[in-house]
């Protein structure tokens, strides 16, 4: 079963998994997973490391993922490291969107990249 963080849940701390995570609540900390969705009303304050990220909620911090989609309701502040990026009309992003080769996400350089 997939992880679901509903709107009435707050997690103050890190969330680490290897499956899919859906966040409709609030997470303050690092989120790691394969596939991550921030639903409308969901908020992440911290960092996201995943294969695929779909953001329709709000996010402050860094996103590091191969496939990133900013949905029409997305509000994102911070760097979005990506290999493939899709931004839908209506999304708001304040920050840089650095492209990186696929190896960047596979290697450990993700952790050390502080540029």
């Amino acid at each position, binding site marked *: 079963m997939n992880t679901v963080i*509903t709107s*009435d849940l*707050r997690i103050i*701390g890190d969330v680490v998994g290897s499956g899919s995570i859906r966040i409709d609540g609030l997470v*303050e900390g690092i989120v790691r997973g394969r596939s991550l969705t921030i639903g409308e009303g969901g908020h992440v304050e911290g960092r996201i490391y995943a294969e695929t990220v779909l953001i329709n909620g709000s996010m402050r911090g860094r996103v590091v993922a191969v496939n990133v989609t900013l949905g029409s309701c997305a509000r994102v502040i911070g760097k979005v490291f990506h290999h493939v990026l*899709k931004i839908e009309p209506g999304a708001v992003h304040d920050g840089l969107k650095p492209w990186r080769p696929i190896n960047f996400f596979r290697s450990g350089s993700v952790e050390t990249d502080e540029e």
Partner: protein
Amino acid sequence: MFTKTERNYDMKSTPETTSAAATASHAPAHSQARATKGPSVISAELKVVGNLICSGDVQIDGAVEGDVESRTVTIGEGAKVKGGTSAETVIISGEINGAVRGTTVRIARSARVTGDVTYKALSIEEGAVLNGNCIHDSKVETSSATTHKRGDSGHVANVYTTAKATG
């Protein structure tokens, strides 16, 4: 450079204002991101290091290192919780290392509990492992999480006005 004062978007106003116009033409990501009902689920392969605060129901099948406050907490078989658990109803089938507080506490046969259990109503199934004191309290005070409403903390509403990009 841009001035910081211009960053005054209201994050809370998003769904009505922007989505209505945008979804008309572009639905894919939006439709996937509909809000879900039911309990929060921490799945088996997931580990949370930190505290969980919930005004609804939480089902834990993975690992949690930290405190859990909720209305209902269900700790599934194979789950591991290291920290205090406080809820109106606590149902334990997995492993807990820490204090348990609950108005109703149910310990199933597959459970392993190490820590004190404070309860108003307690049931322990045959086969359960319980190491700790069982303390009856007719007025168990569980967390404040049950009265917590999302947005009280102001995070969601205020990020955009107060924040600088941290990325």
